[in-house]
């Protein structure tokens, strides 16, 4: 199996793959990027927190005119994760706006987003519609 690296450092390639945020130890605010201090409370200590792989669609768009070299159309979604955290990614299984309803339940999935000249695979993540009670 090819060597793999997550596309961003907040994706953890465990079993299962999941997202992990920086969490302010004072106020519990969550950040995917490194912060010098918490933008909510000013605290300077952060821990790590694993986030849920399940969530609900909060907003979406289907991008038809994309940045160069980005295949289009694709669907971008903002997902509120169960138990806290909001993330932006692609919705992997539809480009039909009628298929996206308020609070649509989704679950995380991963895919190979690219391969570098050493054969290392960058693993991306996105969401798929969750089949309730499945």
């Amino acid at each position: 199996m090819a060597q793999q690296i997550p596309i961003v450092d907040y994706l953890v390639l465990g079993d299962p793959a999941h997202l992990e945020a920086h969490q302010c130890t004072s106020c519990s605010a969550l950040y995917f990027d490194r912060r010098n201090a918490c933008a909510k409370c000013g605290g300077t200590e952060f821990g790590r927190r694993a986030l849920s792989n399940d969530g609900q669609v909060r907003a979406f768009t289907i991008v038809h005119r994309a940045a160069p070299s980005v295949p289009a159309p694709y669907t971008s979604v903002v997902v509120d994760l169960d138990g806290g955290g909001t993330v932006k990614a692609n919705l992997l299984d539809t480009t039909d706006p009628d298929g996206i309803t308020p609070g649509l339940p989704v679950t995380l999935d991963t895919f190979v987003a690219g391969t570098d000249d050493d054969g290392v695979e960058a693993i991306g993540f996105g969401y798929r519609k969750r089949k309730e009670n499945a």
Partner: protein
Amino acid sequence: MSAGDVWIIGTAMTKFGRFPDQDLLDLASEAALGALKDADTAITGIGALALGNVYEANSHNGQRLQKQIGQTGIPVYNVVNACATGATAVRVALLSIAAGETDTALAVGVEKMGKMGLLGGAAKNKGAKKQYEPKGRYGSVLKTEGVLGTGLMPGVFAQAGTEYALRHGVTATQFARVAQKNHAHSVLNPLAQYRKEFSLREILEAEVIAYPNTLPMCCPTGDGAAAVVLVSDAKLKTLDPDVRKRAVKISASVLTSDPWSEAGQVQPDVSTLTRQAADAAYEKAGLGPDDLDLVELHDCFATAELIHYDNLRLCEPGGAGDFIDSGAPWREGKLPVNVSGGLLSKGHPIGATGIANLYEVATHLRGEAGDRQVAGAKVGLTHVIGLASACAVHILEARPAGVA
């Protein structure tokens, strides 16, 4: 601090469009000299200059403009604040007056964008060996635009729109009606970049840029400039009666940035800071949405205008879709919005936009808007928002008739 009001006594804007034969300083000079003439004053009467510009902000364009219109040794402030740049320059001029440093100040906003296309979408250079290595604050190994959702302008404002739509049941057709209205309005504005009316069907069937926004639901890039001359209350009292009677009062000038929110860390929240700016402006002016005769708001995309009806309290909470359906924001409606044609058709040369909307509202309050005049307009509101984010709201009032 001076406690008195600050007034607009002169304003001008260039036509918006694409002007390959005019450079940034040509455009800025035309607007600045136009505003000075409109104010019946000269550069020698100006005590402070604020120049707003985004894409050439490291060129110190305020001082470069002085070399075209008059080097008088006054303080110059070069201002950049995303799409709120022009409005922020106005606030710098206003604060100079409020601080008592001068009684007369000039604010100019200018931008030369030409045909830039999708902002932020420029291709990166290739060639080097591709070797994945985590970089930056997200530890990303490759460009994530389009892979982990979209952060480009059309997508951001589309997602802001669908967030509202999923919550309140707004349809793609309702969003399209915003563009139908603004393009129809632009036909009457000789300064607009585009003056072409579109049918609702043409808008809905046009190329999708980022659903639900089609091409006519996205503002163009372009060139243009706008300017205002501001004076203190005390200074106004000394001016010629013909200048005084055309003066427009700045009843509120408010600038906000994003308060922290969880979702705002990944998808810009254009609503909260707009609501906070609007509420503060209404309180400062002692006026409410019912007092407004016209509004120029930041319709960078049709989805943006629709949600700002709600953010600026122009409609019932959650009722922005019904508001556009009712015809209220049309020029003949209950509360005309973007009678200039808005950013969608008047254009959006970023640094100029926040002053151009003051020009538009002031021109109506003076009763000088010609074919597109909103009859009897006495109070108007302007709004701009730039991602990062910065939001500016101004409330303007006509000078009561009969006051000396």
